[in-house]
């Protein structure tokens, strides 16, 4: 084995090691894996997003149709969730509703999208559309609080 070939192999070994470190590093930051398909964005405001995370799934009847692309706070201090929906699923009317659900007792939270009715007054949601009908995450502490201290307003 001549020294040129050895140098080449050592160089590629060092490169492979650096690539592995980079991959581990990008895992910590937000890496964009496999996001090359066409998509459009919808936004929705919630009272409480609970444990929802960026890149959580958006499901319609259990089928993943998109991912959460960002979670931010609106000017009126209500959480605003931006959702990236696959362009194959572009027939949702603006009467659709979204809810933050939990898979299993300890599982990850995701957004469940329920398509609404269609009549002459509804429109199909397009890029930048807003879903008005939202249901927030269930927060266990709030539920226990309501249960313990009653809800005198009702």
């Amino acid at each position, binding site marked *: 084995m001549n020294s040129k070939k050895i140098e080449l192999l050592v160089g590629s070994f060092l490169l492979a090691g650096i690539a*592995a*470190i980079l991959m581990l590093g990008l895992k*910590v930051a937000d890496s964009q894996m496999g996001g090359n398909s066409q998509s459009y964005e919808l936004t929705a405001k919630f009272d409480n997003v609970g444990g929802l995370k960026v890149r959580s799934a958006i499901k319609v009847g259990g089928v993943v149709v998109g991912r959460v692309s960002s979670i931010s706070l609106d000017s009126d201090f209500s959480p605003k969730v931006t959702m990236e929906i696959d362009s194959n699923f572009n027939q949702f009317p603006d009467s659709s509703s979204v809810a933050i659900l939990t898979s299993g007792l300890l599982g990850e939270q995701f957004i469940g999208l329920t398509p609404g009715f269609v009549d002459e007054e509804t429109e199909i949601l397009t890029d930048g559309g807003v879903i008005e009908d939202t249901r927030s995450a269930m927060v266990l502490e709030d539920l226990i609080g309501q249960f313990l201290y009653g809800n005198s307003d009702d």
Partner: protein
Amino acid sequence: MLIKSVANLGRSGLSYIAGAGRAGSLLFGALKPAGRGLKLLPLLIKQLYIVGVQSLIIIVVSGLFIGMVLSLQGYTILVGYGAEQSLGQMVALSLLRELGPVVSALLFAGRAGSALTAEIGLMKATEQLSSLEMMAIDPLHQIVAPRFWAGVISLPLLAAIFSAVGIMGGHLVGVDWLGVDTGAFWSVMQASVEWQEDVVNGAIKSVIFAIVVTWIALHKGYDAVPTSEGISKATTSTVVQSSLAILGLDFVLTALMFG
């Protein structure tokens, strides 16, 4: 009888301390700047090839399988709690914090450490080291230093490759075979893995293991009894002592870093 056994204990204690002293002076002599650093670069590259590149296959294969097994076992446990989407977190954290540095160091001790000991031991037995000294070349600089640096550079890179390949293997089994959601796999992992806490601490571990394993291997070879039996004993004790040192140090480091 009693005096004899006390004397035996004292003799083995003294020889142990003398061995530690020789190991210290070996490392000091090898790391002492000799003013010919650039001339040693071709030697370092050759050793990087022998120590690093040739260990790559065993590291990649075992990393892949350990990641796959972790994922399979983790899935069967987590699915009982309906929390199988935390699989990515489990695989990534156990690889980055423990299995990556420790298992790659153990494999490195078996694959590269034993070869270093045998090579240097045979050089001593065939009096190549003495010949170098006859030609006024310091064998610590010519033989020991390139091998030491090659080990210290290679093992952290091998550990990083091990962890990365292991996570790929975990993804392969968890997502492609068992059907965990791929977005949840990565997002839970990204939310729980911290650069400083997990990746950097794992890298520090593997640098320390690299120094310890290479040092033990070089010392055992340099200190071997120059017979075929002595070389075989030295090779065995390299593997045994570096494995024990890795596991013991790992506990101490884990207690310091995550305790």
